[in-house]
């Protein structure tokens, strides 16, 4: 028998309880789901980083720097139209980097509407953001109060409020898109090395990379614990019991990790670690990096000067 699943590309680890989408999952299933999706994500993120797209071919240092500058640019500009242009720019970059648009949009917009989209809705009305009314929703006899909040006589959607909500959602979506682009097109290890260009000390990035490795180890330990518990449970435990169990697990995990840090330290010392970190750099700046940088500088200065004119 051919082990078909070994050679297929789809390496997804099945989520527990994936079939029945009940809204009242217990804390065990939820945590288990979070843990597995973390482990799955960290495998899948590398998948796109290996493709030969545009952003993947750019030196990670140049990429980190340019994405950082773009993030700051997004936070600086004011006209909604310009932010929209930058958002379209991220979409084009995603396409050029061979990231399926569906996956890219899902990753960004699953987060944005859930959080910022809902938050932005009340900003439309003049209760929260005062301004010129463009659509009247309700009229009352005089002002009234709910607790400390003043409810005005006329409740209306304001021009300022709608622009604010639009700018807010666009800005969040564009920023998130940029970060997602960086994540999807860069291997974690080279991303960390590239962080040095932002003047982050080597020892710090070294600790971050170690942390990342041990997160995996601790999560595998946790996964075992959760599965062991799940397989021995036949009814929903009370809230108090659940909380006690979770806290106990945290305590155990903490003890384990402190013990492990001692072991890791001994292992490092016995292999010659002298508190000095040297990371081998294998980056080299190529023609495409110069081209990208040139284009990038022109693009950002254009956006910023348009912002000056319209803002």
């Amino acid at each position, binding site marked *: 028998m051919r082990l078909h699943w070994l050679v297929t590309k789809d390496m997804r680890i099945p989520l527990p309880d994936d079939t029945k989408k009940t809204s009242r999952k217990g804390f065990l299933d939820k945590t288990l789901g979070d843990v597995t999706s973390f482990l799955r994500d960290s495998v899948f993120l590398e998948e796109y980083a290996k493709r030969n797209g545009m952003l993947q071919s750019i030196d990670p240092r140049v990429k980190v720097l340019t994405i950082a500058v773009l993030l700051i640019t997004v936070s600086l500009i004011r006209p909604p139209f310009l932010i929209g242009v930058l958002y379209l720019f991220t979409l084009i970059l995603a396409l050029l980097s061979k990231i399926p648009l569906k996956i890219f949009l899902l990753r960004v917009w699953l987060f944005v509407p859930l959080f910022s989209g809902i938050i932005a809705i009340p900003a439309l009305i003049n209760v929260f953001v005062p301004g010129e009314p463009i659509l009247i929703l309700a009229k009352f006899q005089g002002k009234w109060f709910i607790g400390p909040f003043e409810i005005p006589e006329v409740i209306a959607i304001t021009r*300022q409020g709608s622009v604010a909500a639009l700018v807010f959602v666009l800005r969040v*979506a564009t920023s998130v898109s940029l970060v997602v682009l960086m994540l999807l097109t860069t291997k974690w290890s080279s991303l960390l090395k590239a962080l040095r260009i932002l003047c982050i000390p080597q020892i710090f990035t070294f600790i971050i990379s170690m942390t990342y490795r041990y997160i995996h180890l601790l999560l595998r330990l946790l996964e075992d614990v959760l599965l062991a518990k799940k397989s021995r449970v036949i009814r929903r435990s009370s809230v108090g019991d659940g909380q006690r169990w979770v806290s106990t697990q945290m305590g155990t995990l903490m003890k384990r990790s402190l013990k492990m840090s001692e072991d890791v330290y001994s292992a490092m010392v016995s292999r010659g670690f002298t508190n000095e970190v040297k990371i081998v750099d294998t980056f080299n700046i190529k023609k495409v990096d110069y081209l990208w940088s040139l284009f990038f500088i022109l693009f950002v200065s254009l956006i910023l000067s348009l912002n000056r004119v319209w803002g």
Partner: protein
Amino acid sequence: MHIPDGYLGPQTYGLFYAVMTPIWFFASRILKKSLRAKHVSYLALGAAFSFVIMMFNIPAPGGSTGHVVGGTLIAIILGPWAALMAVSIALIIQALLFGDGGVTAIAANCFNMAFIMPFSGYYIYKMLSSKSEVSSPRQIFAAGVAGYISLNLAAFFTALEFGIQPLIAHTPDGTPLYAPYPLSVAVPVMAFEHLILFGFLEAVVTGLAVAYVSKTDPLMLGLSSVAPVPATMRTTRSSKGLWAFIVILVILTPLGLLASGTAWGEWSSDGLHSLLGFVPEGLKRLEGIWQYSFMADYNLPGWDSPLMAAMGYILSALVGVGVIVFVTFIMSRFISADRKS
């Protein structure tokens, strides 16, 4: 409580990078001194643990679940400085790898969850549990209260950060540019959910975890007394409160923009004229002697839009604080060098 990208304007997140950089630097020096080479593995495992803690779903009444930050729990066991670094690294990984919390907002998030929370939690715990037995009910109670208060403090700072956005960054017609809600909305909403629900979750988990650790491995709670401040760095301990105070003051500088009028005693001669009806002769002569300031009126030349003005204001505050700190630092260098010789 993770602030995403786009919620804070550049003047706010920039400020937090400026505030957190020296704090991180300071913390890593302290840890390097007290733990030597061991600090690498200690921090890596501490940070990994901190990351995993945030992933736990905690059952809450009504069948729902919530997450905890765990800043106080980690501070109680590892000490506040190690907790600062551990939680920061966990937050950085969350932002860079999972887009959980903004990249521009990393420093602000670290300030709330990795600085305010562990430090306030640690000292509240120390204060309430003073001299009590390691696994006594008082210790557990202290840990719970510390968890509750510190989480609410962190939430309060988070609310302040995006509550001031409409004040410091809006277009001339009053359209907010970043997070749109004023302090009067942001603070009560954040405070409400943390006072009612998340604070209690944090309290229960912190208390129970400390209870468990103190019962099974009481030595672990003793660890924090080794980790935070070695004898050679004693001076930093006494100034810790002061530093926190300065940091809070810098953050509050934009609030000064809200007040109308000038600070008492800082009138220009025009202002004085309208107050008193006349201008003292001597003052008239003295005024205008100093014409050469780089940042006149706490602003940069050409930065006249409200956004840029606010940014200039904070930049001025930062430059001011930075210069003072730098000068003091140089002076202290000389003074301590003298003592040694």
